[in-house]
C-alpha cells in the first residue's frame, strides 16, 4: 500500500472522528448533558402526550406574549 493511501485513510477517519467529537462538545456547551437521567427518562416516558404537552407550552407562551402586546397597543392607542 502506498503511503499516499495511508495518509488519505488516516486523514478521513480522523476527520470523521473529529466531527463526532465536535458534535459531542457542542451538545456539552449547550447544556444537553447536564442531567444524564433525562435521556433515559425520555426514552421511558416520552410519547405522543408529551409532544402535545410541549406544543401546548409553546402556545401558552405565545398567547401570553400576544395578550401583552395587545394590551400595550390598547394603552398607547391615540385618542379618537
Amino acid at each position, binding site marked *: 500500500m502506498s*503511503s499516499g493511501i*495511508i*495518509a488519505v485513510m*488516516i*486523514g478521513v477517519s*480522523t476527520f470523521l*472522528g*473529529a466531527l463526532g*467529537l465536535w458534535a*459531542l*462538545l457542542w451538545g*456539552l*456547551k449547550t*447544556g444537553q*448533558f*447536564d*442531567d*444524564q*437521567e*433525562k435521556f*433515559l*427518562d425520555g426514552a*421511558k*416516558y416520552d410519547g405522543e402526550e408529551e409532544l402535545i*404537552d410541549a406544543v*401546548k*407550552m409553546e402556545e*401558552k*407562551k405565545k398567547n*401570553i*406574549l400576544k395578550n*401583552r402586546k395587545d394590551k400595550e397597543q390598547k394603552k398607547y392607542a391615540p385618542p379618537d
Partner: protein
Amino acid sequence: MANIACDHCHLEFDEKVMIKDENSDEIKYFCCKGCQGIYHLLRSEGLDSFYEKVGSIKLEPPKELDSDLHKFDLEGFKNKYITQKDGFNEVNLIIEGIHCSACVWLNEKILHQTQGVVEATINYTNNKAKIIWDEDSVKLSEIINKIRSIGYNAYPYDPKLQEERANKTRRDYYSRLLVAVFTTMNIMWIAIAQYTGYFTGIEKDMKNVLNISEFILATPTLFYTGWVYFKGSYFALKNKFVNMDVLVATGASLAYIYSIYAMITNTGEVYFDSVTMIITFVFVGKYLEVLSKKRAIDTMDNMMGSLPTELTVVENGEKDIVGIEEIKTGDVVEVKPGDKIVVDGIIVNAEGNFDLSSLTGESEPVFKKSGDEIFSGSVCLDSVIRYKIEKDFKHSMLSTIITLLEESISKKPAIEKLADKISGYFSFVVLTLSILTFIGWYIGGTGFEKALIISISVIVIACPCALGLATPMAALIGINSASKKGILFKEAEFLETMAKSDTMVLDKTGTITEGKPKVVNAKFLKDFDINLLYSLVKSSKHPISKAIVRYIKDKSDDLNEYFLKNVKNLEARGLKAEYENIKLFGGNLELIKELNIPFCGDFKNTVFIFVINDEVVAYFELKDSAKEGAKKAISQIKKMGMDVIMLTGDNEQASKEIAKEVGIKKVYHSLFPKGKAQMIDTLHKQGKKVVMAGDGLNDALALSRSDIAISMGSGADVSVEVSDVVILNDDIKGLAQALKISKKSYATIKENFAISVLYNSITIPLAISGHVMPFIAALSMSVSSLIVVGNSFRIKRLK
C-alpha cells in the same frame, strides 16, 4: 393481621390502622389523609399514570407544612431569588422529596398544567428545578402550593452564588477531557504501527505520514487539554516553587519539541504518544476533583435555601416585615415556635427552649431566658420570644460557618503540599540534570544536535510516568478495596495524608454514640393506664419524649392516644396536661421539686418522672449509648500508634462517662463549633497531623480545618461534603479499617517510589552518559511503570 401497602406511598402498615377508601372503583388503602388526598388529586388531574411509572418504589408520605406561602410573594424574596428574562419571571428551586424519575415526571407535568408557567425543567441528579412563569397569570406562591399539593416541597436557591461558576468549570474540564481521550485513542493505534515499524523496518515516506498524523493529534492535546498545566506552571513559577504542573508541562512539551525536531530532521523516533498519554492520565485526576466540588456546592445551596429571607421586626409596639439584609444591630425581632434564628442576638423578653443541634450536634434542647445570647442556626421550639439583634446577618454564626465552608471547598492546602513537595524536588532535579547534561556535552564538543538529544532522553527517561503512577495506582487500588468495605475516600491523596497522621479526634454524638437517647432503666412504682403516659409524651417533640414513645411502643402493642386537655410545655422541666380530671405531669427532678412531691434518687443519667395526681407512678432513666464495637475499634486505632481525643458539645458528666466506656483518656467537652475548630488548630500548632471524625453540621467547621476529615454517612449533608472520607454504613469499625487501608496503601506508595527511584538511578546516569537512545528511555519508563502497577495490586490482599 397482615401488613398492606399504602396505595400512594407504598409504605406498609397494619391493615387496621389504614384508611379504607371505597370512593373509587376498587377499594384502596392509604396510610394517611395526605396520601389519600394526593391520590385523588392525581386521578382528577388525569395524572394517575404516575403510579405505573413509579412501580413499587416507596415514597415519602406528605409532610404537614407550615403555611408560609406568603413569603414567596414578598418583595425581599423577589429581589433575592427571582430574575427577569424576556418579560417572564425565572426562579431556581430545589425540590424536596424526589425519589425516582417518575417523581420528576409528575412534578414537571403538574407545573406544565399550571396556568402561566411557560417552562419547567427539573434535574433528577441534584433535584434542582428552573421555572419560568408569567407574573400576571400566576403567583409564585400558587406554583409552590401546586408542588406541595402533590406531596413535595420546594425552596429557592441563588445559582449566582457558586453554581454558575462551578457548572462552567465542569463543562470546560469535561470538554478538555473528551479531546484528550479522543486524541490518545487515535494516537495509540498509529503508535502501534510505528513501534512495529521500528523493529521490522519501515519506509521513510510511511514513517513521515505516521509522524505527521501523530503530530496533528498531539497538538490539540498539549495546547488545549494541557493548557491547565501551563497555567498552573506559570503561577507556580511566579510564586517561586516547582509543582507537579511544571513537571507535566515541561515533560510533555520537551517531548513534543523533540518529536517535532525528530520529525523534521528524520533523525530518530517521535514521542507524540507519550505527550498525549502523560497529559490525559494526569488530567483524569484533575477532572474528578472538579466533579466533587460541584456536588459540594449543591449541598451549600440546600442549606442557604432553607433560611427565611424576612424577619418580623417590632418597633414601638408595631410589627413590620423586613428583609434579612436590612436588619440592623439594635432591632428587636420576634420569632415564633418552629422558626429558625437567622441573626445572632440577645433575648429581651420571655424564655424558651432552643434546638441547637445544627450548631452543637447534641439533641437536647437548651433553655434560654432574658439576657441570654442566641445564635443563628438554632430553632425556637416552644414559645414566642423577642430578641435584640447583636450582629448583622453577614457576621452571624450561621453565615460565618457557611462562608468558611465555601472557602474550604476551594482550598485543601495540607494534601496538595505533600504531593507537590515530592514531585517538585524530583522535577527540579531532573530539569537541572538535563540542563547540565546539555551543557556538558555541548562544551565537550559533540555539537548542538547530539547534546539536545541526550539531554531530552534524560527528561524522557525520568518522565513523570513511573513517579506519576507510583501514587495513583496504589491509591486507586487502596480506594477500591476501601469502598468494598463501605469506606469512601474522596480523593487519592487522602490515603497518603491519613497514613501520615498521628492524632485521631472523634466527635461524641453520632460518631462514638448512637446519637439518640434510649431508655436504659424503667421503673413502674404503681399500676396505671399506660395510655395516659403515651398520650402525654406523644404531645411533645422533645428527644426524651420521643425516646419514651419508642420505649412504650416496643413494650406494648395495644396503645390508644387520648385527647388531653391543657397540654403545656414547662420550659426546661417537662410537660403537663389534664385528662378527665386527672392531672398529669412528666419531667425532670426540678419539676418534682416544684410540685413539692416527696421523691428522691441518685440518677447518673437523664431522668423522666411521670406523675399522676401528685403521685409518682413511674420513672425512666435515659442514656445515649456507645455504638457497638466502639471500644474495640478505638483500641485498634490506638494500637496503630494514634493519639485518640474526644471533642463534644455535651456536658462534662455525660461526655466523661462515654469516654470511660470506650477507653478514651483525653476529653474536651462543652465546645461550640468554633471551639472544636480551635482545638484542631491548637493540635496543628503542636505539630500534630490530625484526622477528625464527626457527623453533625456542628462538626463541619472543625472537619474542614483538619488534615483528614471523616464523616459518618448518615450525618449532616454538609459535613459529608466537606469531609475527605465517608464511612457509609456509620460503623465505627470503619474508622480502624480506613486507617489500616491507608497505612498499607502508603507503604505501597513508598515501595513504588523506591522502585522508580531505583530505575531512575540506574537509567538516568546511563542517559546522561549518552548510552540511551530516547526510544530505549521510553521503553525503560514503561517497564518501570508495569512493575509499579504489579506491586500496587498487592494491596488487594489486605483483609
